[in-house]
């Protein structure tokens, strides 16, 4: 094959994406990666310029106490394999890279890639259990950035980064596709909800809603459900025409420039539309990329987004709390339920209170996982791992930890307001042949349980 698929250059064209996609599973891509030359001088320069005292101190002061070991689900699910200890994983990759001042070869960089994407989901749980507060998840994210710059990233990450750069979304969904899907969903549900609408680019709306391209491409009913929930709560809402997608495979890929482009696109929409608040769909990493890390990529010095920017669970909690959304008590979930704490907005943004507030309205028999909240474990598929074929086996091993947690609760339903967690839970049920446990986003449950206010026209269909 003559095409050079594996280079340090990011993908910025449709043709580039298609060429990569044609290479099934990235066979050629990975084979070319082995021959890719490492620009050692540039690497040394990158490390010198971007790796400062926080990270260097983390690496040098680590007391090798192994308290991070048991905090990591990879360590636990791999029979306490010492090479899965977070400290070990980062010392033999980033630590070694710094010690050698970038004088490494492709084989070493591939080993770094294998660890950065196959042995860490950047869940940051290790940071909570280290006496020094060393955040190995943050270091692996930093390493991903270095690896992206030099071209040593998984095939799907290269494609994902390209998708965002070309389409402004994680999938090949054009502005036309997006608007048409909104119109289609309104049409589909117009009979049941005569006054349902999805206003596009409505200036000065109270709420601007942004979402995940997966919903447009594969789960459009989610969009309809979002519209219905805004409708019955009398929310003055809108969606942007451009800057409607707030996920970030670029963040998983270590493509900081791509991340910045994504966030700026959304903040530009905020600028145009001037909403009071922005609400993002049920997606963990989207919230992390746009609200937690995002302001920095967009040059906001304070680290705050330009306007109040909520995760979907914050909006739902508020609607329930203020009575704008009322749940029919007869329709509350009776089966034992548990709750997944998505790392990116619970441990890393403190929204565990909001999700629990919601559970108090919708579930009669809610059982907490152990550990829970800010101390809960990653689903096993975060950080892009769900989508990376090269590490599927490793991911499937890691999923066992979360499945064990779910089993221990006795729950028959897992509430999981996060796309990656949802996928991980779906996959673990399949991989481990568990057929008796359901899992769900919030939207479909809420639409089924809500009491329709009198003034909202509704026809039984």
């Amino acid at each position, binding site marked *: 094959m003559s095409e050079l698929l594996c280079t340090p250059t990011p993908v910025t064209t449709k043709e580039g994406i298609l060429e990569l996609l044609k290479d099934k599973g990235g066979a050629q891509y990975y084979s070319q990666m082995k021959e890719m030359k490492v620009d050692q001088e540039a690497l040394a320069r990158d490390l010198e310029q*971007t790796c*400062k*005292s*926080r990270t*260097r*101190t*983390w690496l*040098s*002061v680590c*007391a*090798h*106490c*192994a*308290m991070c*070991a*048991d*905090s990591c689900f990879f360590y636990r699910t791999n029979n*306490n394999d*010492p*090479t899965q*200890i977070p*400290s*070990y994983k980062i*010392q033999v990759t980033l630590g070694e890279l710094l010690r050698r001042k970038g004088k490494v070869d492709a084989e070493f960089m591939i080993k770094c890639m294998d660890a950065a994407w196959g042995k860490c989901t950047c869940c*940051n749980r290790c*940071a*909570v*259990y*280290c*006496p*020094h*507060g*060393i*955040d190995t998840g943050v270091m692996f994210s930093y390493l991903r950035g270095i690896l992206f710059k030099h071209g040593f990233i998984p095939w799907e990450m290269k494609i994902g980064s390209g998708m965002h750069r070309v389409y402004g979304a994680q999938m090949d969904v054009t502005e036309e596709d997006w608007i048409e899907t909104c119109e289609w969903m309104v049409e589909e549900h117009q009979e049941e909800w005569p006054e349902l609408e999805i206003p596009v680019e409505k200036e000065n709306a109270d709420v601007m809603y942004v979402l995940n391209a997966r919903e447009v491409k594969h789960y459009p009913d989610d969009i309809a459900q979002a519209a219905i929930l805004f409708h019955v709560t009398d929310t003055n809402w809108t969606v942007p025409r451009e800057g409607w997608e707030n996920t970030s495979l670029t963040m998983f890929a270590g493509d900081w420039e791509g991340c910045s482009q994504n966030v700026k696109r959304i903040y530009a929409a905020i600028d145009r539309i001037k909403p009071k608040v922005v609400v993002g769909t049920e997606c963990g990493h989207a919230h992390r990329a746009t609200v*937690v*890390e995002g302001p*920095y*990529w967009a040059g906001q*010095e*304070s*680290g*705050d987004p330009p306007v109040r920017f909520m995760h979907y669970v*914050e909006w739902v909690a508020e609607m329930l709390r203020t009575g704008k959304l009322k749940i029919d008590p007869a329709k509350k979930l009776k089966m034992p339920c548990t709750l997944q704490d998505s790392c990116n907005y619970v*441990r*890393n*943004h*403190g*929204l*565990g*209170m*909001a999700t629990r507030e919601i559970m108090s309205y919708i579930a009669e028999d809610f059982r907490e996982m152990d*550990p829970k*909240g*800010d*101390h809960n474990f990653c689903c096993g598929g975060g950080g892009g791992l769900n989508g990376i074929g090269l590490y599927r086996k490793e991911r499937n091993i890691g999923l066992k930890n979360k499945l064990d947690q779910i089993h221990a609760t006795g729950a028959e339903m897992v509430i999981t307001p996060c796309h990656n967690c949802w996928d991980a839970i779906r996959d673990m049920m399949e991989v481990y042949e568990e057929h008796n446990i359901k899992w769900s986003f919030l939207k479909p449950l809420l639409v089924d349980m809500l009491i329709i206010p009198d003034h909202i026209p509704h026809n039984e269909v």
Partner: protein
Amino acid sequence: MLDFITGPLFIISLAVFVIGLLARAVMYVRGLDARLERVAYSYHTDRSIPGALVSIFKWLVPGGTSGWRAQPVAAVLFFILHFGAVLIPLFLLGHTVLLETYVGISLPSLPGGVADVLAIMALSGLVLLALRRLSSPALRQLNSGQDWLILLLTFLPFATGLMARFDGGAYQTWMIAHVLSGELFLLLAPFTKLSHIVLFFMSRAQIGMDFAIKRGGATRGGAFPW
């Protein structure tokens, strides 16, 4: 000989220790980068200051964090070492006398019995930590020369100090060994993992600020629940 090692050499060692650790702390802070690290260090001080303090103090209390509670063996060994390792150098009568003579600072001193217990606990902690390094499969994967060095550097002053305390016959010899090994500890601290004496506070403050400013400080309702 004793005059020199308890006089000028002591001053030099103490100066290297204090100035060296101060320099490490200053260099750490100066090397922080709000943009690169994506933490707005100078914003939201109403959250970041409590966040930093909670991050530090919870870990200074035995069982004060989920981390300590999840690793009870490591936690116990850590605390029996550090109670003595911190309190003895600062508050042992033999040391407070030196400090008052040379620097003019007057610190309270520990009762003799308490000092004995703390010192023996510290020594036991060191030995048990060394055994843990040798026997735990996890630690065996991580152990490095530096880890053994600082165990040794800390072991020597405590061992020789206790010997000076209990072996009256060879007091002079043990004292010389004690002072020299103590000064070695002071001299090397800023250049080894012993620098955690200040860097622990630096890195804990940093992560506390990170979680307070950026990762939930505004929405969690309080500092991170370590």
